[in-house]
């Protein structure tokens, strides 16, 4: 497949998955930015495992997920029920510390990064199909899991916490447990995605994992709609895709454009484009069609 299509599809999948990784904890108002740090840590770790220790990719990917989950678990012990700004600050701090540590570790490339990771499946073409395949399989699986979560008792508990924490507690919801579960899920997902992210380019570099990434995922969620998982699915391909139609000089201003769109949405359409009402009305329309046919 043409290279540009490969990059578009793979990066879009990453954006969908990472925005979902942020969507899940935000159901209890946690902006879990530590996920970008998870990407970085698991990504570099997997790169090191594959390149220097010749670990097969499959294992490296699984380890990436696991490391994400472990970090997520340990941190959630402390911030499972913390206020939003604390979660944000912990996230930023982890990103900062991670970057500083990696910058100073020459064994994984330091400021130069890691290059020339091997192709999975032997050839560059096979590698690309493989990556796209895994990414979209992941999109389907994760999408399904989130769908089930949203329509479960856990999802309703999360909504209650979002609206009114004290009310939720008085209804018997264990805020910390719910928060921890969501955070662990999110960090695990982020770990794996970080591994795949690097393998899209067959290299790892600190420039991949900057604070700008936080901005991109935040824009996808809030513009798409933070109240449902579908907002991300719609917003990610569009937000990543439409700048590609513009000349490169405009494209370099991508982050500014995203920021401006985010501000416009926050002010004009606070729930995002795909709101809960919208999804509900589509659901009703579909079920009505099913009845009539």
């Amino acid at each position, binding site marked *: 497949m043409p290279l540009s299509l490969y990059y578009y599809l793979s990066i879009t999948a990453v954006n969908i998955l990472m925005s979902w990784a942020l969507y899940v904890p935000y159901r209890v*108002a946690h*902006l879990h930015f530590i996920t970008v740090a998870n990407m970085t840590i698991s990504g570099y770790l997997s790169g090191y495992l594959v390149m220097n220790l010749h670990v097969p990719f499959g294992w490296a990917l699984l380890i990436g997920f696991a490391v994400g989950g472990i970090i997520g678990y340990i941190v959630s012990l*402390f*911030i499972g029920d*913390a*206020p*939003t*700004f*604390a979660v*944000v*600050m*912990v996230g*930023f*701090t*982890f990103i*900062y*510390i991670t970057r*500083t540590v990696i*910058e*100073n570790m020459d064994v994984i490339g330091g400021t130069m990064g890691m290059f020339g990771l091997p192709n999975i499946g032997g050839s560059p073409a096979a590698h690309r199909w493989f990556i796209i395949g895994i990414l979209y399989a992941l999109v389907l699986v994760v999408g399904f899991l989130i769908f089930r979560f949203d329509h479960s008792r856990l999802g309703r508990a999360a909504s209650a916490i979002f609206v009114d924490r004290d009310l939720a507690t008085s209804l018997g919801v264990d805020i910390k447990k719910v928060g921890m579960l969501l955070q662990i899920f999110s960090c695990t997902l982020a770990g794996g995605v970080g591994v795949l992210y690097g393998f899209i380019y067959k290299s790892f570099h600190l420039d991949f994992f900057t*604070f*700008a990434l*936080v*901005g991109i995922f*935040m*824009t996808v969620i*809030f513009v798409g709609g933070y109240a449902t998982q579908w907002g991300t699915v719609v917003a990610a391909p569009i937000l990543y895709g439409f700048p590609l139609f513009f000349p490169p000089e405009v494209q*370099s*201003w991508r*982050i*500014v454009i*995203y*920021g*401006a769109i*985010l*501000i416009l949405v*926050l*002010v004009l359409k*606070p729930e995002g484009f795909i709101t809960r009402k919208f999804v509900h009305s589509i659901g009703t329309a579909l079920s009505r069609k099913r009845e009539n046919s």
Partner: protein
Amino acid sequence: MQVFIAQIINGLSLGSIYVLLVTGFNLLLLVAMIIHFSYPQVVVFSMYIVWIVLNATGNNLILGIAAGVLSSIALNVLCAPLFQKVMKNRGDVDINATMVLSMAIGMIITDVLSHAFNKGLPIAFPEALTGSKPFLRIGLISIMPGQVWSLLMGIIAVGCFFLLLYKTRAGRAFRAIAEDPAGARLVGIPLIKTGFQSYALSGVLGGIIAVLLAMLLHSASPGLGEQISHKVLAVSIVAGLGNLVGGLVIGLALGILEALVQGYASGSWSNAIAFVVMLVVILVKPKGLFGIKV
């Protein structure tokens, strides 16, 4: 020993700037009721404006400083209606929404700085502003004018701020809103108009900080805003959100701590130390060392 003293002086001047930043941040938190993550980025933007005006006018200090203060006020005041609209949108004050808005603003500022100014390379401030010769020399210790100014201005600004808060009508309104916004409405204090005043005031503060930073650091870069904003947030979280006195103590403490680490260990770790401390405090005592006052 002399290294120690030199670093303490360094630390105090840097700390004064942190104190000023935290004060502006707390002001917006308590009175405008927003968490303005990217307040320091607005400050760094003003630094760039100072740099541009200095370059354009051949180092005219007065114009440069005026431009910095004005641009800071302008940017703050321009963002005010955005914040207030977002707050109104989400019903009662939903601090989360203002956080995301603030981060979006910061996103834009940082990226604009990386693109449009000096091709994203760091900028250097002329010696006319920073002063090239030490102000005072005691043995091996040399005190630069920038350090003296930031310490002095820090004291004056914080002093004026507390005076305003406790001895003026506007300050009373600020404190009332900080303690109880609903109660303040009851007494007839216009929340939005007063909130607006706090944006303007933090703009003035921001302009002063921009000039002081320029004098102290001698340079600026697009990433500086993010770095400082994380540290300022670290300070306010460790002190306790909204705690003015706590912010004073922790701001100075961080400045001294960073300076000491810088003096005795490698450079890039001095930045990380702030985060490590903050991380420990957030995880262990999320309400901060002095207690949340908001």
